[in-house]
């Protein structure tokens, strides 16, 4: 594939609003996971909740889009000058020439969950104020961002469970390469809701403790929420050494099980190989792998096997979900941004929360931060339904 410039990027999760706080937390190895006190949820689990969403305001003309998911999108959009950068770019290439590609799994389903508590006792009808299109529908967040950024190009939501916001990089890159657009706002937004908290609980996939990816005692995920965005453009004539490029996107399907990974990580392996092939790189060109690393026994076992089969046992890797929680539909974009921070700052973040590595996992998992020049990072995202996506980001110089 033709590489693209990751012109701007930003992320907001439980470890920080914007890049500076996120980087500080990674350097300080701080986790944002806390005992769950979300809404009326009574589950013995830890979550990665973003503070300040309840007081976040949506612009008056977009009031109908008001829901937790879009508030989180708004909160993230206004960090790091991202909104202004998109505006500047729209002035340069035209509002019709910028696409919007957002991954989400939850969208604004929380609004629907709350509305079901308010059904009319006589008719059973939902409250008049409930707006399906602007909150519940999967497209709501992409629609909101397209309007908020005043863009007029193509737009869509990708909803492939936890691979959603990695896969948006693939759709955006193809549309730019086809010449239909000149730039793309890509990202992921997923917010806490009862469906995911009680749903993952029903599958017995949630840990009671903060999640411990690759730990010998790991016993499940911690659900988090996040919004992360990037502005992708074609490569300009001149680049700075610090510029971050999207070098490869690899996608595959497990064809194995709806809610469990292939035991040997076959789909994960094929996604990583496809990303390397798209980037025209050999495995030894990758300096660090940001793992999907959810902290479930089965994911980490399968992913470690897949990583080892492609990269051997020496490529440093870690999961940042011990810090951020598993932000589901936002995880791909959040971890792409963390990968971009890793490239810019020469930081390979050691996995937070993990104390004792599972000796049966052969991938070289980092328990402490490593510093040094990093030229290329691979980031993995895998989801229910067997959806897999690997991204490769690299420094321009």
């Amino acid at each position, binding site marked *: 594939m033709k590489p693209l410039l990751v012109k701007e990027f930003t992320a907001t999760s439980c470890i920080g609003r914007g890049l500076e706080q996120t980087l500080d937390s990674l350097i300080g190895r701080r986790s944002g996971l806390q005992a769950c006190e979300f809404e009326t949820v009574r589950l013995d689990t830890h979550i990665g909740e973003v503070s300040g969403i309840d007081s976040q305001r949506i612009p008056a003309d977009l009031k109908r889009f008001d829901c937790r998911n879009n508030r989180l999108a708004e909160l993230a959009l206004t960090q790091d000058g991202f909104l202004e950068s998109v505006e500047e770019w729209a002035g340069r290439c035209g509002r019709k020439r910028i696409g919007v590609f957002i991954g989400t799994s939850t969208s604004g389903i929380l609004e629907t969950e709350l509305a079901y508590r308010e059904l009319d006792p006589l008719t059973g009808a939902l409250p008049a104020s*409930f707006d399906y*299109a602007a909150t519940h529908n*999967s497209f709501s967040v992409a629609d909101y961002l397209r309007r908020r950024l005043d863009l*007029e190009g193509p737009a869509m939501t990708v909803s492939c469970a936890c691979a959603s916001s990695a896969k948006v990089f693939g759709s955006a890159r193809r549309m730019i390469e086809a010449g239909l657009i000149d730039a793309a706002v890509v990202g992921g937004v997923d917010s806490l809701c009862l469906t995911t908290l009680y749903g993952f609980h029903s599958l017995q996939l949630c840990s009671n403790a903060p999640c411990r990816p690759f730990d010998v005692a790991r016993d499940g995920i911690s659900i988090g929420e996040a919004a992360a965005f990037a502005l992708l453009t074609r490569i300009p004539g001149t680049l700075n050494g610090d510029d971050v490029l999207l070098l490869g996107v690899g996608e595959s*399907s497990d*064809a194995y099980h709806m809610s469990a990974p292939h035991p040997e990580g076959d789909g994960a392996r094929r996604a990583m190989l496809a990303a390397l092939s798209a980037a025209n790189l050999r495995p030894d060109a990758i300096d660090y792998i940001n793992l999907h690393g959810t902290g479930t026994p089965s994911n980490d076992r399968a992913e470690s096997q897949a990583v080892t089969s492609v990269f051997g046992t020496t490529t440093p890797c870690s999961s940042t979900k011990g810090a951020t929680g598993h932000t589901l539909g936002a995880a791909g974009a959040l971890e792409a941004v963390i990968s971009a921070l890793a490239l810019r700052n020469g930081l390979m973040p050691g996995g937070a929360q993990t104390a004792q590595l599972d000796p049966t996992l052969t991938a070289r998992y980092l328990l402490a931060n490593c510093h040094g020049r990093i030229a290329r990072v691979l980031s993995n995202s895998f989801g229910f339904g067997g*959806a897999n996506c690997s991204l490769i980001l690299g420094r321009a110089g």
Partner: protein
Amino acid sequence: MKIAGYVGGIGVLGPGLNNWPDAAAVLSGRRAYEPAATVLPAPALLPPTERRRTGRVVKTALAVALEATSRAGIEPAQLASVFASSGGDGHNCHEICRALTLEAREISPTRFANSVHNAAAGYWSIATDSKRSSTVLCAFDASFCAGLLDALIQVAVDEESLLLIAYDTEYPDPMRAKRPIPDAFGAAFVLTPHREAGSLARIEASLGFGPCDPLPDAQLESLRASIPAARCLPLLRQLAVHKEGRTVLEYLDGSNTIVEVEPCN
């Protein structure tokens, strides 16, 4: 770059439309349209235990996907896929939201696994052992064109053969009042980068602004306007009449997608 490819096989299922030849007869005016509730076949691809777990949305998607690949004579496992749906499984979503209002808040694991927007894609890939890339997307009422663009661009840019499946089903009450989709509709298209022996037509897409083409038959037009996946009906009609021509499909906020259709024989 031209955003173009070849249609190799089509599957259709909707109210009063039982398969592609049936829909083609109606859309080309060879048979009068008689609206009737969509008849969903049992998903033949799935083992009996899985069949019981799948809702109407998965049955719709799998039925048209299987018809399109069978007609094209292509092994499904060879195809990447793009699934375009305005909503997920509305009945499943309703049951989850209802359960979450109860004291116990118990959601069955199967219900939760089926709640993901990519459930149909997951079942399809498992049933056909398809390990290629699968993208599942949504653009509310513009979902069909969003899917068509994503699919045709993938065909053109990556020179990849691909299956596009557009599908939607109804919500039960009380969601139905907020999202009044009347019934199930699905359409699937095998798309290839180069002309094959069985290619039906070459299609080329571009973006435009302005109104889209309505259908001349009032009842078919009502179907087109009431189910997002049925926004593809004008394209199906152009393919059914087997003549060179262009059709304008509804996309986002007053924009449209223009599709030039050139039959292969």
